């Protein structure tokens, strides 16, 4: 059986639902040929790269053959060529695309070195100050720990990049784990819907840990992005969160179909404040 997936022209977040539904479909297929058709794709984002990498692995897991049709657009094609090579590589290699302003890795362990490597490589071409780099390391390491600790899937895809003259860094984080854990709803019965649970995770530092100590990671991530006037988008289970700290718009929506996994998209502004300029606590030195 052959299954063709048409990738959208633009890399905008508007297409997130089509990416999520593609993952659902890819999970159902076995012993098939999955064609990821990017022929009309004009631009790529960390989000679309993460999905492409993830879909290739998903296809392989279910004994499917994953094929990428390269974009007609030359620039987009060059970026994707590196991803396409992976389909022919036996085993499960670590993904690394040496594109000038784009870095992507499949991370299988609890280690911040990968994130550090990616940002160091990007800093050769983008104006990432040491302070901005630290802020991004703190955000991405926390997301990595969350995935490894709670998703049930010990691997994730991380893609970080900057585009053209944009003063923003975009980062995407994708795992195909359990999404919002059921344990959260059994322990805290008041949060019946995923959207309510996600709001509580972000606002009330809700955690699945037995001792109920935690939730510091998302607090720090939000503090940094708030100060940075950046953006945070989360898609997990039935929940979708669109947090735009510049416009102070915080929207939570219920998805029509669930996504088993977690997808996070971040926008960090290189010309704005980050961790250091905004968190008063660090003015006190204990160590």
């Amino acid at each position, binding site marked *: 059986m052959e299954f063709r997936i048409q990738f959208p022209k633009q890399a905008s977040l508007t297409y997130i639902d089509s990416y999520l539904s593609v993952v659902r479909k890819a999970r159902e297929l076995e012993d098939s040929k999955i064609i990821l058709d990017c022929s009309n794709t004009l631009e790529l984002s960390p989000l679309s790269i993460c999905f492409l990498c993830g879909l290739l692995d998903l296809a392989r897991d279910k004994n499917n053959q994953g094929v990428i049709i390269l974009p007609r657009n030359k620039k987009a094609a060059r970026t994707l060529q590196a991803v396409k090579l992976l389909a022919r590589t036996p085993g499960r290699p670590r993904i690394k695309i040496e594109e000038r302003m784009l870095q992507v890795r499949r991370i299988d*362990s*609890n*280690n*911040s*070195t990968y*994130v*550090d490597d990616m940002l160091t490589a990007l800093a050769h071409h983008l104006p990432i100050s*040491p302070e901005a780099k*630290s802020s991004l*390391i*703190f955000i991405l*390491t*926390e997301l*990595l*720990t969350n995935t*490894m*600790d709670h998703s049930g899937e010990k691997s994730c895809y991380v893609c970080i990049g900057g585009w053209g003259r944009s003063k923003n860094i975009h980062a995407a984080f994708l795992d195909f784990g359990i999404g919002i854990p059921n344990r959260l709803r059994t322990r805290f019965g008041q949060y019946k819907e995923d959207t309510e649970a996600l709001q509580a995770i972000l606002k009330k530092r809700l955690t699945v*840990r037995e*001792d109920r*100590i*935690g939730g*510091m*990671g998302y*607090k*720090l991530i939000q503090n940094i992005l708030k100060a940075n006037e950046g953006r945070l988008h989360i898609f997990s289970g039935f929940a979708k969160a669109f947090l735009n700290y510049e416009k102070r718009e915080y929207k939570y929506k219920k998805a029509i179909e669930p996504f088993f996994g977690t997808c996070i998209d971040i926008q960090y502004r290189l010309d704005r404040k980050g*961790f*250091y300029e905004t*968190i008063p*606590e*660090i003015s*006190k*030195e*204990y*160590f």
Partner: protein
Amino acid sequence: MLIDIPRVCGEDTISREAGKKIRNLILDNWSYKNIAIDFNNKLIGSVSFFDEALALLIKKGNKKLDEIIKKIRLINLRKEDKDLVNYVFASRVKEAETAQNKKGQVKVANF
């Protein structure tokens, strides 16, 4: 007493699990006058790790802040990690103070 982070934690130096390992090691060796924690300049970057390893010595290890600062020395710690440790500590100290103030208010109200 020296705790070598890469040696004790191996590859995982960011999770709460790894942090807990370090906290337990610190508590097991609390009788030593000084405890040095050597990070070997390895990047940690994880608020979860630092919270579990060090800041929770107050809340879960029942140790006093000045005791901790006096006894523990963080060596070969990268600048960004040092800032993160201070942030985590400040957050937990603030939290403890708020909880204590609330307790005090309840007592006053009861009185």
